[in-house]
């Protein structure tokens, strides 16, 4: 023992280099050691369900802060941190998330953003709700403003996912949960969407009930655009059924003689009453414009564009509301196109012939009343007449050979006179106009066929 002590006593000089080594070790190792400890602790806690996890190392001691979702979860996360090799002490700064009463959750979408807000029980549920939201967002931004909370009612996730699915059917709107009570508001993306949502809500998980369903159907839209440059008439939006579709396309063909019809209409339920009558009347008004567009939204008709002359503009503005079925409203923003340059009589007659080559003026069968379908054509004839102010016009009526000759003669005169009257109302001076009827005496085609008869029933313009 004495020998041992004698030897040990001589070891003290080595303490000086040992102290230097110790200082160097402390200087170089402290930060890497702390980082290693914090990193391994974070790795160990990765499988635990925590939010806002914060790990700070000071030497071998850790401070662990986190929001846990249960007391068990909180305790087990501390136990895991304490078991990490190298850890000496763990300062527990974890807490349990607050309980929400009531437990509320909402998802709202507008044109540019889908926002999730309110309470959510667990990170995994949050991730699934966000994933479902991105699925229905259609490319718009998804904003997550949800906060974790306890007190979630049973079957929350299934309900929230079902509501998100319904939000996908809304153009804009909101779905919300307050405990087990469900509220929806907004406008459906498509016709029938409101009904589909109502049907889906019947499958809400047990215990949940709809407190309010204020989802509105989208407006029933019918749009027509007349483009004189491309010579097209583009129809879009909805029609109630196939019969209405055919009726409106036929009406468009009768009223628009020069334009190529582009049919983008889709059949859908939900049309307001009197839809076909209103659309036909509005198409008639549009046919009188040189360029324009027509939009029908539910029972509101909006017509805008340029008429060919002032009287026509006034007639369209004042006449359209009266032509619509009861309960419909019209808004006509019609101005007058600048008058076309004047031309001489020869050109005028050529223009009349060219225009009437596309189609004849139609009359009510056996009568001298100009058919509404021909108002667009009549306005174009008036416009041509206005371009040759120094020429006199002879309006000539002809009929086919059906019926007796004297009646046909009178009918052709009355029809020519009806056209003359239309032109007078348009503002042409009476002394320039002269109406004459030739009955069935000057056929241009055989009266043996229906096609030939149709060609013989005509009005001609002669410029003198």
């Amino acid at each position, binding site marked *: 023992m004495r020998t041992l002590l004698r030897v*040990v*006593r001589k070891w003290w000089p*080595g303490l000086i280099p*040992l102290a230097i080594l*110790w200082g160097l*070790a402390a200087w170089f190792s*402290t930060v890497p050691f702390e980082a290693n400890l914090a990193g391994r602790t974070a790795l160990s806690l990765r499988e635990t369900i925590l939010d806002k996890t914060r790990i700070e190392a000071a*030497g071998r001691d850790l401070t662990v802060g986190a929001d846990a979702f249960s007391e068990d979860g909180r305790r087990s996360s501390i136990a895991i941190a304490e078991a990490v090799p190298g850890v000496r002490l763990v300062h527990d700064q974890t807490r349990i998330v607050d309980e929400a009463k009531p437990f509320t959750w909402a998802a709202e979408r507008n044109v540019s953003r889908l926002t999730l807000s309110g309470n959510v029980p667990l990170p995994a549920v949050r991730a699934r709700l966000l994933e479902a939201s991105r699925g229905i967002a259609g490319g718009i931004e998804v904003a997550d403003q949800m906060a974790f909370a306890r007190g979630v009612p049973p079957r929350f996730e299934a309900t929230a996912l079902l509501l998100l699915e319904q939000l996908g059917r809304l153009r804009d709107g909101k779905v919300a949960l307050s405990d087990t009570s469900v509220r929806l508001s907004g406008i459906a993306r498509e016709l029938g969407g409101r009904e589909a949502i109502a049907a889906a809500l019947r499958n809400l998980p047990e215990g949940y009930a709809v407190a309010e369903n204020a989802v509105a159907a989208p407006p029933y839209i019918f749009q027509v655009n007349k483009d004189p440059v491309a010579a097209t008439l583009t129809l879009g939006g909805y029609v109630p059924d196939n019969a209405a579709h055919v009726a409106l396309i036929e009406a468009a063909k009768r009223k628009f003689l020069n334009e190529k019809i582009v049919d983008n209409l889709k059949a859908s339920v939900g049309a307001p009453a009197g839809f076909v009558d209103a659309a036909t009347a509005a198409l008639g008004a549009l046919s009188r414009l040189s360029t324009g567009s027509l939009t029908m939204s539910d029972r509101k008709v909006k017509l805008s564009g340029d008429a060919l002359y002032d009287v026509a503009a006034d007639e369209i503005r004042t006449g359209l509301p009266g032509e619509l079925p009861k309960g419909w409203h019209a808004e006509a923003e019609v101005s007058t196109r600048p008058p076309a340059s004047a031309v001489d009589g020869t050109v005028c007659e050529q223009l009349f012939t060219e225009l009437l080559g596309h189609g004849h003026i139609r009359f009510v069968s056996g009568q001298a009343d100009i058919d509404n379908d021909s108002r667009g054509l009549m306005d174009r004839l008036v416009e041509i007449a206005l371009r040759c102010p120094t020429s006199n016009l002879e309006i000539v009526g002809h009929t086919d050979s059906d019926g007796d000759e004297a009646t046909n003669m009178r009918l052709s005169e009355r029809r020519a006179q009806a056209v003359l009257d239309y032109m007078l109302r348009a503002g042409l001076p009476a002394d320039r106009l002269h109406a004459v009827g030739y009955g069935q005496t000057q056929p241009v085609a055989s009266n043996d066929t229906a096609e030939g008869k149709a060609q013989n029933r005509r009005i001609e313009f002669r410029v003198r």
Partner: protein
Amino acid sequence: MLFLAEFHWAWLAAAGVVGLLMGWVGVVHRSGGLSRRGLQWAAAVLLLAAASAFARIVPGRFGYWLDLGLLMFAAYIIGCAIGAWLRELVVADHRSAS
């Protein structure tokens, strides 16, 4: 402690080498070394440090440095003992040969 030793093995090895050299030299060194009182003080300080480390009463980084210091000291002492033992063997062989 095991992880601490594993993480700082290079520093402990260095402390061990210093101890080995000191032990090697100490056997044949002629100076008297630490006085009895000095040895007692050193033992007391060592005991106090070890007790503090086991009781975990030194907080944060200071606690870590204390643990590290004690480990390095232990490595040094072990090195000293091995060094002294080896030197004793060499010296004994030399004596028996002469």
